[in-house]
């Protein structure tokens, strides 16, 4: 059973990662920096619980806030540019964060052994959950509650004025600007929200694996982050969730019998899906169909 609990947790982190990219993508910006924010969240939360001895939940919130701050700071210079230049800027930021942690040593003496990040060796022994006697099931519950809260918040944002503003900027910047929307403010807000979600995800991830190192946060992680919302479709948060479950649950775990060949399959599958459904798995038409179906069920009941 523990296998399914871990699987649910992995899907949980990846959903957070995907949703952090989803918020930014709503404004039409492609950000490859989400892996960097995820790394910041992981390292900050790990240092808070291991070195400062914090409880995991405030550490998680603090990690999210610091990642959000980083996102906000990166947002200002990076969001002056668009398209390819933004892709490159965010890609470079993500790599810079990874290289920073590659060179980051901060070891602290604690209870006879040393704890804390140690450059290329990685950051070991982030053991808050086992030390406080949490079972895998309880950890999974925490992850799922966090994911549920984030999904709920995004669902609500999508229906609020902020959601319309984000989408307006994503659809047509010029039109959005001419009705008086401050483009920079909207983009930086989206980036900050995305950074917070990624930071919280990273914090949970660090405590789940108990060991993080810079190679966990390469470009590949950033690619996964934007792959989920693009594969799933930007019509609603559920597209991202469907894509995460599809990729992590079915492709990575379900096809384990294929061995290493499934990574090959993954690339080819992305190409195929994008050719067949350029707007994502759950595009406008599919979302409407599902909504109509639900409404009809409701009427019959």
């Amino acid at each position: 059973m523990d296998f399914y609990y871990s699987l649910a947790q992995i899907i949980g982190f990846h959903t957070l990662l995907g949703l952090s990219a989803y918020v930014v993508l709503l404004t039409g910006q492609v950000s490859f920096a989400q892996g960097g924010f995820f790394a910041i969240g992981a390292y900050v939360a790990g240092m808070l619980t291991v070195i400062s001895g914090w409880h995991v939940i405030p550490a998680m919130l603090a990690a999210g806030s610091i990642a959000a701050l980083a996102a906000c700071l990166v947002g200002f210079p990076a969001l002056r540019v668009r398209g390819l230049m933004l892709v490159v800027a965010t890609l470079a930021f993500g790599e810079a964060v990874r290289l920073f942690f590659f060179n980051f040593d901060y070891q602290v003496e604690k209870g006879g052994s040393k704890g804390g990040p140690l450059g290329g060796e990685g950051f070991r022994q982030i053991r808050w959950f086992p030390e406080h006697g949490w079972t895998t099931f309880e950890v999974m519950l925490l992850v799922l509650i966090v994911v549920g809260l984030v999904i709920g918040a995004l669902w609500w944002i999508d229906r609020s004025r902020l959601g319309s503003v984000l989408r307006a900027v994503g659809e047509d910047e010029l039109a959005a600007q001419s009705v008086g929307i401050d483009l920079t403010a909207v983009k930086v807000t989206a980036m900050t929200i995305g950074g917070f979600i990624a930071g919280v995800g990273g914090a949970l991830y660090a405590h789940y694996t108990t060991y993080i190192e810079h190679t966990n946060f390469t470009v590949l992680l950033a690619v996964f982050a934007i792959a989920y919302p693009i594969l799933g479709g930007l019509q609603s948060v559920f597209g991202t969730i469907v894509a995460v479950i599809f990729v992590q649950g079915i492709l990575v775990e379900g096809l384990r019998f294929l061995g290493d060949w499934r990574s090959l399959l993954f690339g080819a599958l992305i190409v195929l899906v994008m050719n067949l459904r350029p707007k994502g798995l759950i595009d406008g038409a599919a979302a409407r169909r599902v909504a109509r179906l639900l409404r009809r069920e409701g009427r019959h009941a």
Partner: protein
Amino acid sequence: MGVVDYIQTIIDGALFGATYSLIGIGFTLVFGVMQRINMSYASTSLAGAYCGLMGQHLLGLPLWCAFPLSIFASGLIGYLVYLTCFRFIPVASPLASLMATVGVLLFVEEMIVRATAGTPHNFPAIFEGNSIEIGAFVLRADLVGVFLVGVLTMILLMAVLFRARLGVATRAVAQQPIAAQLCGMRLQTVNGLTFVIAGLLGGVAGAMTGAAVGILSPLITIPVTVKGLIVTVIGGLGSIPGAIVAGLMVGAFENLFQALRSVSERDIYVMLLLFAFLVLRPGGIVSPGRGRD
């Protein structure tokens, strides 16, 4: 380290930077024509270089064949990328094309890992010979060779773009796709051929990277992609001369900081250079002309 050492480091870096220039030009070329991003470019270039190696290892071709074979294979791969990522995806969904090229990037990288079992392979040094000494400075013969081939390729590319009919058509499509179509140019053909040209260029770039580094390993695809993209942005999007200058500059800068600090910190400074450009001169060294649509 004295002044001579610093200048020597910068010269070495700039010579090596010619490979970054080539990759940067490839990114710029595709972006200039299609206004869309081909993230798989650097990896397909290296895949071309691998095909060259394969000819040598599997078919037993002589050493010098690796080079033309790389170029040819890369051109072919370029066209395949066009077919899979751009030809059938509607113009209105640029995100889908971007994601598809990322898919190709992952696919190609995994293919290389599969085919080589992850081990690095020696790439034949195309230029051998003694180092050239000019005064106090020593120029490595292989890097000078790489640099010269790079310059030659760039001149050839400029000649194709500004003299040949295909180049004129490419530039016309880049500026006004609809008007170009009305004038009787076939959009799909021109776009496809652009990818072939970019692919051929990528073959040169991949082989030169292989020759300059000395080995090919699946580990270098992502760093080369990142460097190539940085060169494209620093040089100014869509500008070929800008990409050339930026490539040499990034190479020199990187080598200097490698000497001053260490290999593991080197790339952080390259990223900082990029951010400095984004803040101070977002258009890049050679800003593209305004009024394009």
